[in-house]
């Protein structure tokens, strides 16, 4: 099956800086593909190249197998939902949605029918006569998507469209976007710096950093099996230790941290004894216990003092300072066992080597 969108060795340079550095990926039909990265990593540049507002320095962009490099933006079978939506304030909602159809010279009555259909689809029937500024943030969002979807594009590009919404609405729109994507059965390419948006909605996520794709995979892949330290640090929370590898046997290894602790972990990628390395452990992989005996099954055990409790409902954390003086974040179990935990209490913590991922460190 030809992928809906394919980018091959895409490079974009602005003067001396390389904004997009040799990126290749393909998006299968009907899937939700996200590009996730910090601001300034080049994700918007990729999107603008796909939409046709920028020409790549080299490489190719293919839509349904055909190169679109010579196609101007108004002729490409791609449409874009802009960061601030860019609805046309001088037009009514119906005129906004019908804009693209008018450009295709569709007869008037047919446009009216299609616009009504689209409004039904997004669950806002009968608002066609309203002005853009009479709608709420979430409604505008849906209109912006409908305005693109009436044109039945092969690929819909979304440039951080949820950024301007408040938290509650954003949570709601995540679910809704995913449902709209399923309803329209169109390929969505979504760019964001918000990992939770990407994780919740996407079939595939590409993590981007400094113009390159660090890893492409499902949310689970990225979360549980990160390929690079950047991905491990960017997706989810992590406790980190830097150090030097003492010994290594297959994937199992022991590292001596800079603070002098010996730690067992699992190697990601080729490592050798003596290498500088970095260990990542997720707060929820660390077990909290009142006594050392309860942790006897774990490869790594520490004891320390609670310095702070960060209450955040189900996502509550405890900050534990170990004997070496480092502070770790540990998820607070909500089973009631530690309901009485308070600052200054001595606790034991432990985690398995399988939950500690070790990457080769930058020198």
């Amino acid at each position: 099956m030809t992928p809906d969108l394919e980018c091959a060795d895409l490079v974009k340079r602005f003067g001396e800086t390389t904004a997009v550095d040799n990126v290749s990926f393909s998006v299968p039909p009907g899937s939700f593909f996200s590009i996730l990265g910090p601001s300034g990593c080049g994700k918007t540049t990729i999107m603008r190249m796909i939409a046709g507002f920028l020409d790549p320095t080299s490489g190719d962009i293919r839509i349904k197998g055909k190169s679109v490099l010579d196609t101007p933006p108004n002729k490409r079978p791609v449409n874009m939902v802009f960061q601030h939506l860019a609805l046309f304030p001088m037009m009514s909602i119906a005129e906004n949605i019908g804009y693209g159809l008018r450009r295709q010279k569709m007869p008037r009555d047919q446009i009216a029918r299609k616009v009504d259909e689209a409004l039904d689809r997004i669950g806002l029937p009968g608002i066609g006569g309203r002005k853009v500024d009479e709608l709420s943030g979430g409604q505008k969002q849906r209109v912006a998507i409908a305005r693109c979807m009436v044109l039945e594009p092969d690929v819909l590009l979304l440039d951080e469209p949820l950024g301007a919404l408040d938290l509650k609405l954003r949570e709601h729109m995540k679910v809704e976007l995913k449902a709209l994507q399923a309803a329209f059965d169109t390929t969505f390419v979504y760019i964001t710096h918000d990992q939770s948006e990407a994780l919740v909605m996407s079939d595939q996520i590409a993590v981007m950093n400094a113009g390159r794709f660090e890893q492409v995979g499902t949310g689970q892949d990225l979360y549980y099996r990160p390929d690079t330290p950047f991905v491990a640090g960017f997706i989810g929370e992590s406790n980190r230790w830097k150090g030097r590898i003492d010994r290594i046997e297959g994937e199992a290894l022991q590292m001596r941290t800079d603070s002098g602790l010996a730690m067992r972990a699992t190697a990601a990628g080729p490592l050798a004894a003596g290498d500088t390395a970095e260990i990542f452990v997720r707060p929820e992989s660390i077990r909290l216990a009142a006594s050392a005996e309860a942790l006897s099954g774990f490869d790594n055990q520490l004891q320390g003092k609670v310095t702070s409790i960060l209450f955040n409902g189900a996502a509550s954390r405890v900050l534990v300072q170990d004997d070496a003086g480092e502070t770790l974040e540990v998820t607070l179990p909500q089973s009631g066992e530690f309901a009485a935990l308070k600052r200054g209490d001595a606790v034991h913590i432990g985690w398995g080597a399988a939950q500690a991922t070790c990457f080769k460190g930058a020198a």
Partner: protein
Amino acid sequence: MRAHTRIGFILLLTPLVLWLGLLIIIPHIDMFLISIRERISFGVYETSLAQYEKALTEPLYLRTFWRTAVMSVLATAITLVIAFPVSYYIAKMAKGRLQQVLFMLCLIPFYVSELVRTFGWMILLRETGLVSNLLQWAGLADQPVEMLYNDAAMMVGLVYTSMLFMVVPLVTTLESLDDSVIEAGYDLGGSGLSVLREIIVPHAMPGIVSGCIVVFMLSLGNYLTPTMLGGKDSLWFTEMIYNQFIVRSNWELGAAFGFMLLVLSSVIVWGMLRLTGRTLQETMG
């Protein structure tokens, strides 16, 4: 506290009331009174509409009146057509320093008085002027070419004088148009022309209307440019007012002309607002 605010309010309002009253309202009432009287004999006046009758029946007066109106509308239209791309370039395409420099370039001619600016055009366009010499040197003309003293030269002068007053409101409104809205227009299949017609022009409409009103009034009330650059056929209505007041000392007819001009500009501005479906508050606020 209340008394304080009231005093402050009165203090702020006084200059405005004085300005409006002394310079606009009182002179206009007086002008109106002068315009509706007729001189019977030395020092004896009678109320009548004779001046307006004369103004509306004498072909020269009437013709000049309409010509001035039509030429002012034309000058406004030409100014808009030239200023729009210039403003678009300044507001949307030019970035940073270039933008400031271009804007300054529009402003700099106004450091010089209008009289001197108009002389500049005369130096360029007269028979022994720069353009004439250039044409002869290039072999495109075999004798000196006179380009002054006709409607075209006058139009050039009017457009040149009005340019800035069109560019400023246009740049301001165009700058407020989000780039991504224009991009969305293209992205959804629009061509350059349809994006201009459906997105850019409707957005810029307040700027277009206010620019047009200002330029139209400036052209209609201009005295210097038509007098200096226009020919003997390019009589401007303001020249006739000047003639009646100063040359002929016929204040009655001059005042009637003045009132006709006021009514004309009000009617055309009102028509312009009606045509574009805007209110004066929207345009000026």
